[in-house]
Structure formats: structure tokens, C-alpha cells
């Protein structure tokens, strides 16, 4: 500084010129740094989505057999399906039908698949090769044949092309998700099975068909290729219904109270601080609350969407309250004063005038809160929703899983080559659901927003 004041005018200008250049460089550097940060953020989003999509999209198509199954009457040797007699009670009939169904269940359906495979391969299968042969089609498909037959007994003696899922290892082999040059000892499939799989793929018996199993089946342990998301999806759906039914009314009501009616005193201050804090409490703590109170104390069933829904409700409540309060606060006071001036009571003012105007904001906040709850995993692990469930839950009291928990379970499966893709596919489904909820919220906000 001193040098500048002592210097002559010309020198002063020169010093400023010189420093100006470096200051402008600095300015540029700072601006580039900012841009770099933004670009980094966007690139990270891109990498994340690209890597999930690249791994997950192929899993929506799955190695599938189109086999000509001959319903050989020598193998499918069962009595006629019972018909309800006159005067027979429904219960009796159901019992007889059930006996028949278990008789059908005892048929050696695997033999039909084996025969069809031998046919397709055009080879005699030696007894010691049966193991290799059975590694081709996933084990649950026996039951597919059984169910087809129970549905339609006229199949007996006929040959039909039936779609059967290949086993998980065949899927991995065909898609090249395992190094094909590994020695036999490190391959999951025997050399014979691999050769057959390649042959059948060339012949077009095995194709990569769209995997309906991923959407229609429940999780499976014995037949990994047929593991699907249906059970987890229903579990998540039940939980979201409970979250919506409970957290939106309670959240909106408490926001209305705090914003419009509550006297400003210590108690309401406390509630306010408390809600802000609850919004920042880690989600796993809500899981502990659920485990201690709902499971430990109230003895509600483990793994039930009901408990999951309640825990997620408590977790979502602060988000909805905060969003609703912001929406109510953005309604100008002139609206309230006009209503009060016309003789409306306070309750009438709020419910007839303020609330309808705040509805878009409330709706947006609620949808975002529900979307957040949909993706939550940690609290659900603590209330036992990571249990293996093979049925689609019919009520919120049944055992169930949830989409994010299913992702957690699948990523831990030992058959990494297969489940890395399957998990990514499940993530795509979950992200698609969440992003469409978010998009809905943004669209609603854009459409209904009023500027005051």
C-alpha cells in the first residue's frame, strides 16, 4: 500500500495494471473451479446412472427355452380331475380336488423337461449325464408344467411349445457374464452343459426373451433364475398406502395447527424445534424405535408391512409437516384478512380459503415425502423385513419384503455373476418408480403453482 501512495501517478497505474492481470487470472481460475465442481457433480450423476443402466438393462432379458414339451400320458398318469357332484358340499369338493392336485404334483414333471431337452439336442442322454442336463432349465419350471396341466388337462398326450426359464448359470454363460476361458474347475457349469447350452442357443431353442419372471415372481432361493420382485413390490405398495393414509392427514393437520392456530408459547416452540430435529434424525433410529415399541412392546408381527408402514410414517411426518407449513406460509395474509373481514370464523378461513390455495404445495411435499419413504432401507432391516418371503403378501399383516430391501438381499447373493445384473435391474425399477413420483411432484407444482 505504502509503495502505491508514494509512487508517482504513472508508476501507480503500472502497479495496478500488473496486479489487475493477476487478479483477473485469479477470477478466471475461481470461476473455472466452480464450473469444474458443477461438471463433476453432473458427471458423477451420469456415471452412476450409466453404470446401473449398463448392468441392469440386460437383466430385463433372460435366457429362455422354447421347448416342445410332450405331455406323455405314460408319465403324466393321473386320474380325471374330480367334478363337483350334485349334493356335494363345497368343502368336500375342494378336499377331493386338493387330493387330485397333490396327485398331479407327484408326477415326474422333470422327466418331461428332460425328454424335451434330449429331443431338442437330438442325442441319447446317458444316465450319468442327467445332472448336466438338469443344470440347463431352472428347477422351479417343473411347477410351471404342473400348473399348466392343472389349468388345462387337454394338454395330455399333446406336444406344445412352452416357455421355460434357463437356469441362472446358463443365463450367465450365454450372456458372457463369466469368463468363458476359465478352466473347468472354476466354471459353474460342467463342460457338457456349457456345450449343450451353446448348441441350443445357436439352434434358437434358447433365446434372450423379455423376463416376465422379474415382475411376476416372488423371491426364490432354490431356483435363482425365477427370482422376481412381485412380493417386494406388494410389500412396498402396502407400506406406501399406510404411509399415505397416516402421514398426510396427521402431517397436514399438525402443520395447520402450528402455522395457523397455535399460540406462540414455549410448548409450541418446543414442538417446532422438535419437528426440525426429527427431520434430521438418522433413519436407522426410527428402525430402533420400531423394533423396541412396535415389535418388542406392542408385539406386532415381525416383517409385516404394517409395522414398516408405521415406522416410515413416523419418519415421513416431519418432512410433510415442514413442507405443508412452508406452503401455508406462502399464502398471503390478504386472503385470510379478506375472509375474516367477510365474517368467516378462523376455522372457516383456514379450511375454506387458505388450505385450498396451499394444496399444490402440500401435494408436492407429500409426494416427495412418500417417494423418500419408498427408497428407505435401514429401518426396515431392523424390524425383520429382510426375512426371505416366498409369497406375495395379501394383507399388510403378512410377512413381506420391500423393494429396497430386496435389492439389499440380492446384492448379497453368492451367485454374483447373475445377481449383479438382477440387482441393477431391481434398482432400475425402484429408481423408475421414485423418479416418476418426483416428476409427478414437479409437474404438479408447475401446473398448479400460483405466484402471489
Amino acid at each position, binding site marked *: 500500500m505504502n509503495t502505491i501512495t508514494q509512487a508517482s501517478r504513472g508508476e501507480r497505474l503500472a502497479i495496478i495494471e500488473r496486479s489487475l492481470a493477476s487478479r483477473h487470472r*485469479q*477470477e478466471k481460475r*475461481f*470461476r473455472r473451479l*466452480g*464450473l469444474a*465442481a*458443477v461438471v*463433476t*457433480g453432473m458427471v458423477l*450423476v451420469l456415471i*452412476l446412472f450409466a*453404470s*446401473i443402466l449398463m448392468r441392469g438393462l440386460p437383466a430385463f432379458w433372460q435366457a429362455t427355452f422354447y421347448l416342445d414339451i410332450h405331455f406323455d400320458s405314460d408319465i403324466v398318469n393321473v386320474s380325471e380331475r374330480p367334478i363337483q357332484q350334485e349334493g356335494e358340499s363345497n368343502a368336500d369338493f375342494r378336499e377331493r380336488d386338493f387330493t387330485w392336485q397333490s396327485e398331479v404334483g407327484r408326477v415326474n414333471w422333470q422327466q418331461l423337461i428332460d425328454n424335451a431337452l434330449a429331443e431338442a439336442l437330438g442325442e441319447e442322454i446317458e444316465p450319468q449325464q442327467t445332472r448336466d442336463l438338469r443344470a440347463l432349465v431352472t428347477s422351479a419350471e417343473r411347477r410351471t408344467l404342473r400348473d399348466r396341466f392343472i389349468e388345462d388337462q387337454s394338454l395330455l398326450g399333446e406336444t406344445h411349445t412352452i416357455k421355460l426359464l434357463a437356469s441362472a448359470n446358463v443365463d450367465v454363460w450365454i450372456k458372457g457374464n463369466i469368463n468363458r476361458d476359465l478352466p473347468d474347475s472354476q466354471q459353474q457349469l460342467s463342460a457338457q452343459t456349457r456345450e449343450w447350452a451353446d448348441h441350443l442357443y445357436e439352434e434358437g431353442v434358447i433365446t434372450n426373451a423379455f423376463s416376465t419372471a422379474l415382475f411376476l415372481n416372488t423371491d426364490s432361493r432354490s431356483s435363482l433364475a425365477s427370482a422376481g420382485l412381485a412380493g417386494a413390490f406388494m410389500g412396498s405398495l402396502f407400506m406406501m398406502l399406510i404411509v399415505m393414509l397416516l402421514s398426510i392427514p*396427521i402431517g397436514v393437520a*399438525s402443520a*395447520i*395447527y*402450528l402455522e395457523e*392456530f*397455535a399460540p406462540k408459547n414455549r410448548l409450541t416452540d*418446543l*414442538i417446532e424445534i*422438535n419437528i426440525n*430435529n426429527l427431520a*434430521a*434424525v*438418522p*433413519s*436407522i*433410529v426410527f428402525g*430402533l*424405535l420400531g423394533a*423396541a*415399541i412396535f*415389535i*418388542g*412392546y406392542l408385539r406386532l408381527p415381525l416383517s409385516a408391512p404394517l409395522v414398516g408402514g408405521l415406522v416410515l410414517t*413416523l419418519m415421513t*411426518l416431519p418432512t410433510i*409437516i415442514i413442507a405443508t407449513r412452508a406452503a401455508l406460509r406462502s399464502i398471503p395474509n390478504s386472503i385470510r384478512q379478506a375472509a375474516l373481514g367477510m365474517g368467516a370464523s378462523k*376455522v372457516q378461513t383456514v379450511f375454506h380459503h387458505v388450505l385450498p390455495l396451499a394444496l399444490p404445495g402440500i401435494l408436492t411435499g407429500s409426494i416427495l415425502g412418500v*417417494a423418500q419413504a*419408498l*427408497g*428407505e*432401507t*435401514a429401518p426396515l*432391516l*431392523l424390524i425383520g423385513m*429382510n426375512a426371505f418371503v416366498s409369497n406375495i403378501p395379501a394383507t399388510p399383516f403378512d410377512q413381506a419384503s420391500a423393494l*429396497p430391501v430386496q*435389492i439389499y438381499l440380492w446384492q448379497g447373493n453368492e451367485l454374483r455373476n447373475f445377481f449383479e445384473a438382477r*440387482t441393477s435391474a431391481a*434398482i432400475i425399477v*425402484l*429408481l423408475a418408480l*421414485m*423418479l416418476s413420483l*418426483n416428476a409427478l411432484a414437479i409437474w404438479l407444482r408447475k401446473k398448479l403453482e400460483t405466484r402471489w
Partner: protein
Amino acid sequence: MNNLALIVTVLIVMAVAYQLGLTRSKSVVGGGQRLHSRPGYYGILVALWCGVPTLLLLALWGIFGNDIIQFLVSQQLPPETAAFSEREMLLQMRRIAALASGQNVSDPQQYELSAAAQQARLESLGHLVLLASMSVLAVLGLVLSRRKITPDMRARNHVERVIMVALALSSGVAILTTVGIVLSMIGEAMNFFRFISPADFFFGTTWNPRFSTSGDAGQGEFGLLPLLWGTLMVSSIALLVAIPLGLMTAIYMSEYAPPSLRNVAKPVIEVLAGIPTIVYGFFALIVIGPFLSGLGDLVGISIRTTSALTAGLVMGIMIIPFVSSLSDDIITQVPKALRDGALGLGATKSETIRQVVLPAALPGIVGAFLLAASRAIGETMIVVLAAGNNPVLHANPFEAVSTITVTIVNQLTGDMDFASPQSLVAFALGLTLFVITLGLNVIALVIVRRYRQQYE
């Protein structure tokens, strides 16, 4: 009739009561007299009188009914069952309940059969009594409240008072949640401290909870420090990633970005905030972990695929949008006058930001960082998948670590046995986590609030 059908019936009756109240209120006026409130309010009032006590009764029965029946049935059991432990008793009552509902139970005893018959009898009796008393309550409520309708009855005020009570009760749920969290954590943590002394827990340096099945339950070591250390290590790495990136993003977005870029980049980065944490965990496991470990091989250091670094890096990515949107809010709140003053004195834009805007916004930004830190400490799924679960005290970020949240998940999933220290420790850990995050949040909220007031 199941409960859902009962509730629907009550709702239908309430609709009828509303109509009755409405017509009644219209019929009592005449001769130039006017109703105090609009007729609808009288209808609502009658419907409330008719429905609310009835539903309350139903709720009470739903909560206590089963216990009452169980108590009465257990009185009937032969004396030898008095020696049963709590668990055996529970199993016994389940068997009886199954018998009573007509299911088959292996090898039913005579006394069980009679108890089951008794239970079935009590259940149907209870149901009848419930139905009868609900009907009586509904009719009484309807008739009495309908009779009370007069032109100058202040129906609207009554209804509004009910609405106010309902609203206030709703806002109590948030308080109840906090109370529930605190009480359940403290209660279960106290149970844990009966096995392990608090000093051993808070200052222990070894984490080795043996499994309760190995016979030496209670012998495990439950030292918090390795977990706390792991938590701090992962969150520090996360903050080292998120703070520079988030803050620079916020600065660029609020000060430099042309609107066209802002409109694209802001939603894209906010998408990061909406992605579930399990997805980040999976991303860490299959992309970032192998990438870092390959990078380590290139430069010759061994980096494990699941390590503090992997988890911290991905967690950092997760909280970038959190830091940037909070900082963005705070930076835009700095008054324009401060900026104009600095620019007017000849400062460049970056000098204005660094020497005027940021110092002015500092308290708020620190608050935002604290909130981000609290979020990082409480984050679960990323560390469960990517941190490697290795509860040992060490300072190498390339090695696996374990955190408080991971350990809560590990200790409490599987069998839910609330009697062993192995499960109960989850609550002590949860309490620690709750206190840490609460502390950070309270400080952050106070700072941010004070900052806002400064510029209002």
C-alpha cells in the same frame, strides 16, 4: 363382522346421523327465528356425537379386548401351568387360540380343549357385547344430540372446538415420536448396561460381541471406540469430498451460472439427493470399490474394495446436493448491498465472493456443514455395503472399518432377542448415535436461525 366392516357401518350410520341433524335443524326454525350456525354444522355435530364415542369404544376393545379374554382364559387353566415361564405361557396361549379358531394343533390336551371352548365362547360373547354397546352408544348419541338442537345452539363453535382438538392432537404425534425414541432407547440401553458397565462400553477399545449361542453370553467385549473411530473416519472422508464440491457448486450456481445452465444443472444435481442410499451402496460396491482398488494397484498401495475410502467417497457424493442446496440458500440470503459495496470499490467478482459474501455467510455455511456431518454420521446403507465391517482401531483409510450404524444393523437383524447384550447393545449404540446427531443438529439449527435473523 370384522373390524373393517364395523368401521364402515359406523361411518354409514354417521352419514345418516348427519342427515338427521341437518333436517332437524331446519325444522326447528320458524317464525322469523334464525339458526345460529349453518344447518350443516348441526348435522356434523350429531354425526360426531353418534360416531366418535362408538369408534372410541371399538378402539378400546381392539386394544384391550384380547388381553381381557386371555386373562379370563388363563384363570381357567389347571394349576400346573402357573409354573410356566413367560415364553411357555405365550406358546400355551397361542395353542389355545389356534384351537379356538378351529385350527388343528398337535396333541391337544383335555384342559386345552376346554380352555379353547371357553375362549371361543368368550370371544363370541365379547363380540356380541361390543356390538350391543356400540349400537346403544350410537343411538344414544344420535337421539340426545338431535334433541338438543335449538335455533340458538352454537353448533359451529362446538364443531370448531372438536376440529381444534383434533389438530392439536395431531401435532402431538411428533412430540410422542421423540418421547418414544428417547424412552425406548434409554430403557433398552439401561438393560444393556446391566450386563456391561457404561465405562467398558464408552471407553472400551475392543469390539468383539460373541454370539449368545456360544454359551459364554455376556463375556463379549463391547467397546464403542473402534466403531466411533470408523464412523468419524468415513464421515470425515465424506465431508472432505462433499464440502469443496458442494460449496463450489453452490457459489457457481448462485453467482456465475447463466440461467440456462442453472436450469439444467440444478435439477440434475438434486436428482442425486433423491436416490435411495441402498443404490449408492451398490454403486460403491460394484463401481467405486473395484475402481479404487485398481487405482491402488497402479500406484502400488493396497486399497481394499470395501474400505473407509470407498464408503466415504460415495457418501460424499451423496451429500453434495445437501451441502450445495443449503449453502445456495444461505449465499442468496446475503444482502445485495454488501455485494454492491465490494464491487463498487473495484473488487472482482471472485474477490467479492471470497472476502465479502463468504465471511458474511460463514455462520450459515458452518451450520450447513454441521447438518451434513450429522447426515453422514447417521448414514447406514452405504457403509453396510461398502465399508467392510471390520471393527478394529486403525488409522488406514484404505482398510475396512465398521461404524455405529453398521453394527446396529448387524446386531439387531436375525433373531430378535431382547434379553441378550448382543441385541441390546444396538440400543446403546442407537442412543449414542441419537445424542451425537441431535447435538450437531441443535447447534446447526441455532447457528442457521441466528444467521437468518441477522439479515432479516
